[in-house]
Structures are given as C-alpha cells and as structure tokens.
C-alpha cells in the first residue's frame, strides 16, 4: 500500500483550525448510497423474467438423482455436478430448440414449436442416453451438412465402455444417428464438456475435450501439477481430418497440463488472430490458459497472465463485460454471500498450506469467484470483489450476456448443491461414532445415514446487472429470479424471437427453469442480433469477431457458443443497444482475417453477416492502444525494489484479515536540495534503510541510503517539511509495523534534519518518545506560531489487532517537538486504526 504525501501546499498553510477529517476504513455511507440506488432500479425494472411452467412450455425435464448406498456423493464426488443445456436449431426452422443432458435420467430433446411451446421428440429422434451419466453438451454441425449435430459428454464411476462420449449426427429429419465411434470421438475419458473451434485454421471445426478424473482419492493432495500429459485428468484435442473423422493430437499440440476441468471457453485472448482456450479447473489444479501458438501447438500462460485464480473453479465465461473491446474472464467458486454460511463453509486453507502450494509451483488460488479484467497487455487484473460478484455460494455457470438490452453484458449465475458437504460442522463432527473398520456394505449403510441427515445448499441463482462502471448490482429478486434450486448448466437464447435473451437452466431434482425475458415490454431497449454465415466447414462462424461502434461506445463479441457450465448457448450474437436505434458501424472479422464493415445499421433486427461478403482486411494489424501509464523505471533510472523480511502476522493472530507487517513502502516528494527539481524519499522495511532519490537536470535519479547503520524500524509514512525554519525540507519518518511487541523502541519515530543540500542527519533530540505503531504524519500550523506542527496517526496496537493505536499531536517548538496530544485533543490517544488524515478549515474560521 502506498501512502503519498505531497508537501508543497503545506508551506502555504498558515492558520488552520484543528479539524482533521480522518479517513477511517469504513464504508457505511457508501453502502447506504448503494442501497438507495438499487431501490430506484427496482422500481424501474419490475420482474424482467417470467418463469414459465411445464404446462405452458411442455418442458418437463428434471435431472432427478437417486442416491443409493453405492452411488452417492461420498462414493462419486461429482454426483451432484448436474447436467448441461444446449440450444440449437436442429430442424432449421429458425426457432431455437433445447437439449437437456441427464445424469441418471435420459437426456431430452425438445423442439421449439413457436410461442414458447416445446415438444419432446427424444424418443422419435432416436436419442437415448440412458445408462450413461451425460454431462456437457456441445452443438455443432460436425459433418458440415447444414444440420446441427449433438456431442454429449459422459462421465461416471463406471467402466470405460459406459463412459464413451456420444455423437448424435442429425439425419435432417428430426432423427439422429449415434456415430461417435465412426467419427473417432467415442472418447472414454471422464468428460465434462467439449468445445468446437478451428484451432489450426484449416476451415473445419476441431474438438477440445474437457476432462476430469474420478480415480483420485484426494484431488487436493499437494504435489506439483502434472504438465507432461501423464495425468488421468488431462484434456484432449481432436483434430478434424476433414473427412468426418477426428484424430487425437493432444500430445503434439501440447495439451499436457492436468486439471479437474469444469469449464472451457474458446476466445482469442491475446488478440493474435488464433483462438485460445481457457480452462477452469476444480480443486488444487490451477486453471489453464492455452495460448494458440499458430503452429498447431499451445502453451499454458496462466501463470503469467493471472496473479491469482479461483480455488475450486467450476464453470467460466469469457466475454468483454466493460465494452473496451477486450475479453474478460469470470470463473465460479463456492464462497457463500452471508457471514454465517461463509464461516460454516470456511475452506481448509491455512497460511502454511497456501505457501506450500506456491512452493509447488501453483498460482495462488482463493475460494471465491474471480473476475479477470483484461488489461490488454498480456495481463489481467482480478476485480471480482470490487465488481461485487465474488460470493454466490456453490456456483456452476456464469453467463455474461445483455439481458436488459442496455448495452452492457449482465451476469447470470447458477448455483446450489443438494448436500452441504463442505459445511465445517459436517466435516468435523458428523462422522463421530462412525466405524471405518467394518465391511464396506456396513460402512456404506452408515454413510447413507449421515448423507440423509445432511442439509442442502438450495440457493437462488444470481442475476447481476452490469452498471457500466466495472460493478454489478444484484437484481435476482427484482428481475424475478429468486427461486431456490440446484441449478447447474444454463443457456440463453431468444426462444420467442422478441429480441431479448430468455433463460433455460438444467436443475437437479427439480423441473428445468424456462424464463421468458420481458425486456421488450418492461424496458423497451433496442437490440441487434447477428447471425453468422461462415464458409467451408465452419458455417456457424466459430471464432468470428463482431465489433459495434456507436457514438464513442464500443461493443465486442466473439462467436463461440460453449459457455458457462456444460452448455451451449444460442448460435447468434446478441447486442443490446439501449435507446440507440442505429449503430454507426458493425464490423465483422472472420477467422481467416476477412473483414466486412457496415455503417448506419438499423436496430431491432436479426442481421445476417456472410463470410462471402467480407474482403481481405487492408488495415494493418491493429496495434494495442498505448497505455496511459508506462513503466519509466529505466528511463528515469529508478531501479528500486522494496524488500521485506518474512514475518507471519497470522502466527500471532490467526484471524487477521491480512498482514500488518508489510504496509510499506511509503513515499514523500519534495525538492530536498533546493535545485528546483523534485526529489523523493522511499521508506524501508525492517532491516532495510530508506532511500533518498535525488533528481538531476536530465530527469534521471540517483539514490542513497539515508543511513549506513542496520536499522530495525519499519518505516511507514514520511513527510518532507521544514521543521526548523531554515528554509529546507527536513524529513519525518513514522515507525510502525506489526513485528515488534508493544512499547518496542523500534516504534520511535525519527526526524532527519536537512543541511540544505539534501544530506540528512538524524536528530535524536528533536522528537518526544513515540511508542505507537504509526502509519502517517501530516503537518499544519495549529497554534498559529508560524511553524508547522504535526499530527502522527497510529495504525494499530502491535500484535493486538484491532485495538486502537495512539496518535499524536506534536507541537513544533523551534525545531523540537513536544507531545501535546493530551492538551490539544485527548481523544486522539485512542482514536482507532488510522490510515490517513486531512487538515481542513471546515468551519471557515481561518483556524
């Protein structure tokens, strides 16, 4: 954390009354404002979504699971992972049909008959997945005959024969023929989902298969992630041979990193024109970012692109949510929203384990949803908490799509788990009295009894409205989606052709949800839907990018319908337009680089863009926009790395929210040698001296340690100000930190006197005894005697968080300071844990 102290204006301060507004770490006011805002929105948007019953839709699918003594969540850890939803127009009538995958019940195919009426044609279609634990569903025209086929992933603790994935080839007459074996896609991995994309840009669709394994006893057992393809839970890549057969090319393509895959997305994340793969992995295994090298191989770059990830990542979505033209990434985890449940579900993580994971080569992982904001420079910033979408309980599918057609993609999340197995009470105490040294049948009976007693985590799904400012507001209730359920896969599609996105979810032990979106009536925003007509064997146009520009606003989407969790969304690109009835420009870029640009496009239509209308791009490849800020360390010769000695605050206070021993470095800026150029001081941590950086005429800096002695104080805030009235800037350094016991001599603050040339000498006599673990210092003339007095803020009682710390008022008496806190403002002696203060004349008395 940086504390920046600008010194110059302080010279001008003459007489300001003592009115320090203290910025404490409290956000009560903000919260109230936030609530008000939501209230206003609620009134404006009543029940956007309307739940449709089975009788209305004809959709009766329920992913019903029946626990037995041998088949339950203790025997089969992915028992409650649920199934997917796939949307596709299987009879080419322009209406989107729906496929639900079933785990212990057969999967179902429903034809859209219009007006949100559906017909179950599973049986006559020849689709029969009974006896297979169907998981993810991917829709694509795999044999390139103009009709959508269905690839069904299969898993389960069964023999490999029963785990073979299924490929239903569309016979063009509402019937299908299973032909996975024939196509070379009858893979018997433990599959979660599949995504089709043209990784080698040969014009046809290849298949990425997302896998997990159920053969590992403890997937959180700490060992380095296997990166050589030997893991049983390694994903696979199948290349399309162009003759209705596929070949497993995983090894040569570098698909070698293991992971308990629960989410896969295809997107050109580094914008080099080649589709990349993002894989979210459950348990200890890190997520994978396979960048397409453009030569048939991939390289995992997750460790360099992300600073941290979700711990037990489930589904994901990759889409541009802040309309900057760059795709962002969201992954799901299990953190509950309310305090009680978040404590009950507290994961098994501790500091030592966390550090051991890092030592084993893992990118840090945290139990919460992560929203990775694309910085456009091969890095992402995780803002899930800032955006307000990090805690949605046991979550599966995130879908970023514009549900209210206001031009910003909102966020729908499914969640729920029928047995609350990560509840700490269950983990610690529920098995008491259970005897493991008995025959398996007896043990299973005991387990069943415990499982039966386990409560469920039946939670409402979440719907967040994108507020256009990097944050989301929870509209679950206001938009009519507050119904507790165990929902897994989900897909959006404009099922009724009214220009907004309806929602379908696959639920465990409950009827599938079908929600009609009433945006057209409730909100009346405009929209543009784009249907792609690709070429050759990629008629759907997977990997095609569409960019909308309208009055300085930009919207971006990339076509890949495999999103969220185990699901396939509608085969169109849907853009909300707010009140705009025209789009200045629509630009489509096909995977082969051909571009078509349309101007003044009318809103509220389904626009078909065909590859044949595009031309080779004349524009040179767009260079990434220059960043506002760029590192200038080399240019200015400021090569400084702040270092800290390891100290683990948690070993003293295990419940601390974060370390307090590493709050530095601070920096203060001022012209210390009177040459008219700004210099600065950087505080040093325990055992590291602070350094003074002097600016030379050419703008570069040279630095020197402020002392050559070993110093033990932890420098916190500092201030350059004229303490002794000799016209130069002296340096006050606050000592703080959490490493030392209460009243340690290392909490003594220091005042360095300047000889006018930027040489500082410690004045041992200048300061009274200070024993507080401090954080900052700020100056003003509070007694009107023409010199600067000081307020020194106390940060914390060392090793005693959150007890308040002493703060000080130091009166300047000719360059020496006297502690006058008790006389001037006794309340400051125990004010709290301060991080900043501001002098201001709020009553305008010029005091």
């Amino acid at each position: 954390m940086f504390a920046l102290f600008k010194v110059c204006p302080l010279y001008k301060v003459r007489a300001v009354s003592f009115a320090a507004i203290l910025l404490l770490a409290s956000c009560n006011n903000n919260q109230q404002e936030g609530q008000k805002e939501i209230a206003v929105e609620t009134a404006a948007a009543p029940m956007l979504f309307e739940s449709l019953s089975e009788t209305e839709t004809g959709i009766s699918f329920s992913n019903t699971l029946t626990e037995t003594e041998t088949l339950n969540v203790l025997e089969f850890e992915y028992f409650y992972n649920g199934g997917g939803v796939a949307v596709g127009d299987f009879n080419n009538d322009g209406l989107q049909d729906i496929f639900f995958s079933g785990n212990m019940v057969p999967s179902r195919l429903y034809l859209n008959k219009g007006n949100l009426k559906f017909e179950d044609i599973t049986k006559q279609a020849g689709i029969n997945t009974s006896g297979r634990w169907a998981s993810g569903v991917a829709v694509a025209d795999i044999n390139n005959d103009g009709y959508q086929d269905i690839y069904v992933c299969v898993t389960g603790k069964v023999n490999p024969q029963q785990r073979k994935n299924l490929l239903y080839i569309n016979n063009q007459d509402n019937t299908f023929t299973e032909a996975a074996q024939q196509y070379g896609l009858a893979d018997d991995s433990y599959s979660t989902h599949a995504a089709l994309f043209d990784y080698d840009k040969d014009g046809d669709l290849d298949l990425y298969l997302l896998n997990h394994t159920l053969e590992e006893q403890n997937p959180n057992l700490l060992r380095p992630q296997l990166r050589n393809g030997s893991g049983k839970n390694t994903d696979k890549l199948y290349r399309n041979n162009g003759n209705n057969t596929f070949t497993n090319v995983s090894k040569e393509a570098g698909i070698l990193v293991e992971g308990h895959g629960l989410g896969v997305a295809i997107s050109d994340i580094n914008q080099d024109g080649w589709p990349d793969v993002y894989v979210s992995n459950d348990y200890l295994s890190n997520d994978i970012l396979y960048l397409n090298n453009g030569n048939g191989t991939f390289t995992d770059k997750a460790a360099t692109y992300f600073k941290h990830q979700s711990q037990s990542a489930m589904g994901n979505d990759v889409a541009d949510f802040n309309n900057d033209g760059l795709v962002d990434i969201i992954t799901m985890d299990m953190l509950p929203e309310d305090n009680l449940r978040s404590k009950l579900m507290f994961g098994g993580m501790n500091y030592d384990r966390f550090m051991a994971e890092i030592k084993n080569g893992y990118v840090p992982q945290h139990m919460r949803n992560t929203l990775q904001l694309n910085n456009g420079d091969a890095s992402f910033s995780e803002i899930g908490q800032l955006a307000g979408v990090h805690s949605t309980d046991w979550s599966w599918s995130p879908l970023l799509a514009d549900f209210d057609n206001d031009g910003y993609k909102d966020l729908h999340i499914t969640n729920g788990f029928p047995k609350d197995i990560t509840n700490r009470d269950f983990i610690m105490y529920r098995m008491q009295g259970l005897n493991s040294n008995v025959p398996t049948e007896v043990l299973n009976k005991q387990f069943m009894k415990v499982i039966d007693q386990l409560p469920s985590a039946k939670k409402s799904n979440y719907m967040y409205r994108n507020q256009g400012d990097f944050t989301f507001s929870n509209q679950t209730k206001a938009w009519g989606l507050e119904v507790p359920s165990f929902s897994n896969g989900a897909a959006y599609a404009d099922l009724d052709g009214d220009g907004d996105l309806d929602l379908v979810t696959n639920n465990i032990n409950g009827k599938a949800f079908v929600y009609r979106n009433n945006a057209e009536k409730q909100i009346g925003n405009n929209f543009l839907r784009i249907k792609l007509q690709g070429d050759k064997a990629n008629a759907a146009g997977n990997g095609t990018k569409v960019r909308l520009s309208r009055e300085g606003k930009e919207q971006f989407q990339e076509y890949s319908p495999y999103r969220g969790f185990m699901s396939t969304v509608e085969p169109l690109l849907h853009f909300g337009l707010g009140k705009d009835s025209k789009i200045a420009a629509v630009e489509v870029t096909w995977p082969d680089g051909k571009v078509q640009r349309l101007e003044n496009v009318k809103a509220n239509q389904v626009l078909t863009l065909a590859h044949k209308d595009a031309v080779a791009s004349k524009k040179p490849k767009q260079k990434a926009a220059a960043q506002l800020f760029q590192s200038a360390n080399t240019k200015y010769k400021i090569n400084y790395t702040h270092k800290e000695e390891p100290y683990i605050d948690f070993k003293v206070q295990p419940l601390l929210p974060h370390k307090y021993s590493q709050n530095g470095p601070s920096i203060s800026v001022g012209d210390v040698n009177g040459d008219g150029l700004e210099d600065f001081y950087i505080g040093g941590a325990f055992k590291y001296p602070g350094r003074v950086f002097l600016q030379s005429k050419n703008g570069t800096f040279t630095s020197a340690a402020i002392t050559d002695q070993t110093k033990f104080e932890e420098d916190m805030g500092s201030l350059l100000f004229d303490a002794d009235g000799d016209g130069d800037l002296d340096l006050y350094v606050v000592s703080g930190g959490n490493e030392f016991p209460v009243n340690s001599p290392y909490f003594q603050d220091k005042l360095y006197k300047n000889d006018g040339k930027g040489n500082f000498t410690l004045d041992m006599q200048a300061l009274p005894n200070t024993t507080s673990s401090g954080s900052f210092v700020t100056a003003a003339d509070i007694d009107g005697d023409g010199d600067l007095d000081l307020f020194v803020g106390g940060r914390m009682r060392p090793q005693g968080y959150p007890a308040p710390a002493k703060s000080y008022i130091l009166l300047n008496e000719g360059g020496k300071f006297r502690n006058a806190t008790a006389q001037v403002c006794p309340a400051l002696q125990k004010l709290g844990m301060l991080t900043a203060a501001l002098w201001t004349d709020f009553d305008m008395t010029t005091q």
Partner: protein
Amino acid sequence: MKSIKSLLLLLVIPILLGCEEKHDQAGLDKFSQSQLIVWNRHLSEIIIKDIFTPPVASRIYSYPNIAAYEALAPAYPAYKSLSSQYNGLSAIPQPDNTKELYYPVSSIIAFSTVGKKLILDELKIEEYEAEYLAELKKIGIREEVLNNSIAYGREVGEHILAWAKKDGYVETRALTRHVVSAKPDTWQPTAPDYMPAVEPHWNKIRPFVMDSAAHFKPQLATKFDSSATSDFYKEAMEVYSIVKNIDEEKLLIARFWDDNPNISYTKGHVTYFQQKLTPPGHWVSIASSAIRKNKLDMMEAAETYVMVTTALADGFISCWDAKYAYNSIRPDTYIERYIDPDWDPILQTPPFPEFPSGHSVISAAAASVLTHKFGDSYAFIDSTQMAIGLPVRKFNSFNEAAFEVGESRIYGGIHFRPACDLGAEQGKAVGNYVVSKLQTRKAGQTAKL
C-alpha cells in the same frame, strides 16, 4: 393453586426422608470400587468428541485423577497426600473431622469438578454427575453424608483447579504459532490436511514432577543428510521398504497403535474427520483393564491412575520440548522429496515434528509405571481398539506393548527408527522418575501388589 401445592410438597418431602433414610454401606462400597474406571472412560469419551490433541489430552487426564486421589486419601491412613511432591501443589484442604463423609463420593466429585473445567462439553460432565448421584441415591446414601462428601470433593477439586490454572496452559494459548522453516531438515506440514503444528509451546507447561521440560532431553541421533549414502537416508529407506513390503500383521500393529485422535477422509470435495482415542487415552484404557482385572480397591485404583497419568503428562512435556527443539523432518516429507515423490505412509502423519516419537515416549513412560505397579511379567490382553472394530492384542508385559508401539510408528511410515528407540529411552526415564518422585504410601506401607 400451583404454588400452594408445591409448598406443601416441600414440607412433606423432608419429613418423609427424615423418617426412613436408607443408607446401604455395602452397596455403596461395591458401586464405588469401579467408579474411577467409569469416570476415566467418561473423560475419554469427551476428549474424543471435543477433539483434543494428544498433549492436551494428557493434561486433561492428569489433574482429575490427582484430585480424585487427594479427595480419597484421607480415608486411607496408609496413603500420603502428594501435595508437596508435585511442582507447585500446595497442601490439600483437609476434611472437617466433625462431619461424616463418604470419601469415594468426594473423590468422584473432585474428579468431575476438575474434569469439567478442562474439557469443552461441560454439560456432558454435568449429565454424568447427575447420573452418578442418582445412582448413589438409588443404592441409598444418607443426605447429610452425601452433601458433606460432595462439599469436600468440590473443595479439593477447586484446590486442584487453582493449581492447574497456573501451569501455563492458558498463557500458551496466546503464544505465537509455529513458523514453518525453509531449511531442508525441518518439519513441514504434511498430507492430507497440511495442518499447522500442534502445541509448539508445550514445553512451557509446568512439568508435574520433572525439574524442567528439558529434564530428559534426548540427543538427536542421526544428522540430517539427503545424500543416498548417508545414515539418515538409510533410515528413511528402512521406513520406505517396510511400508512397501508391509504385511497383514504389521498393518494391524500400525493401525492398533495409530491413536491419531483426528483422521481425515477425503473423496473429492467431501472431506470428513473421524475421531478416536489418543495415545494417552489408550494407556489409560490399559491401566483401567489392569485395575479391573486385579480388583484393586478404589484407593489403589486412584494411586495407579495418578501415577500413570502423571507419567503420561510429563512424558508429553518432555517429548514436546525435544520435538520443537529439533524441529525435524517427517518421513513423508523426506521420502517424497528424496526417494519417491508418490510415496504415502500407511498412517496419516500427525501434525508436529518427528523426533522423538511421542507415542514411544509416553508409552514407555506409562509402561514403566505400570510395570512398577503390576510387575515385569504381567501378561494382558489389550481390547481397547475393539471399539473401532480392531481385534484384541496379547502382550506378555507392559514393556513389550510399549516396544510394539515404537515399531508400529515405523510400520505406519510416520517415524524413523531413532525417534522410536531414543523416545522409548526418554519415556522410560520419565516413568522411572515419576515412580521415584511420587511417594503414595507412608513409610512401611508397600506400594506394590
């Protein structure tokens, strides 16, 4: 109306009791003889459910048994108070001679009074106590005697608690947690739960009879070395090959003495813990069975428990002092790092440093005390683990059982041999010191059977 009725009842009951108060001395004596066995079992059950770690469990066993001993001793002229023999224990309050007491009741009440404050589930102790008192009344005990006895038991219990309060336990709760070192020879958190190290400051607990925690500190036998030709490596290879070639018998031995109070089982996102007896609990159970089999009277039972639990408690203090002084690496970490990255021990590695083996130390300590009491050729059947579905084991002596404990830790893959061998020596020294230090009988009264 209601209040008048109860008022009448209040008046009537004392009159009835006063008229024909039953007091069955023989029945009470018969009942009381086994009560310390019963109460130590109660304590074990609560320790299991409250999930205390082994060193903490040893502390929980020791104080109630000392209280029980002290509250019973006044009834037995041959026995001495241990007050001046324990570190820091001042003279025990003496009973009022003008009052009539039944000391076995005082003894149990002293036990429960102390026990209640050392565990978490206080309600359970209250329940057990209510059951106990109801049983006494059912047999027949004069109200006045009962009340006098309870009062004295409480008094002794409070005295012991006041002493216990100053043993450093409370203070150690607030001390710094163990910091994992990066040095190659040091303990690292181990699979599957990577739990933080247990009780790094247990050497700051006041020893019961030892001069200091470091009184019997063993020397580290083998210098850490990762090279394949080193002695340390060879010791690791011994563990590695034993685990690799484990047979039914060794597997059973490892499990029989596992005594890990909190074992986790993981299946995907499902993790659950199962609790069982601690190592000190196992030895209290062995002591109980010897007491029962020899039909010891209550005083001698109290004497046996006090000796055994003190040896266990000092054994832990002594062992933990060495554990954190040496902070040595577990086989799990060493073997995974230098021999076989996919290696797993048979037993889950307990979360604290390797040397010396805690179970070896405290088993040898308890065995020494029990040998002193029951002789070196006392053959017995240990049926402790039947409760968790394991068969009984037969031993020719306590020392033989203690020796098997050491071997079991190697079979289980959680200790190297020197930790067990030197741990046993350390434990024996602690046990013998307890025997020499605690004088339970007055001069001329034999302490042996």
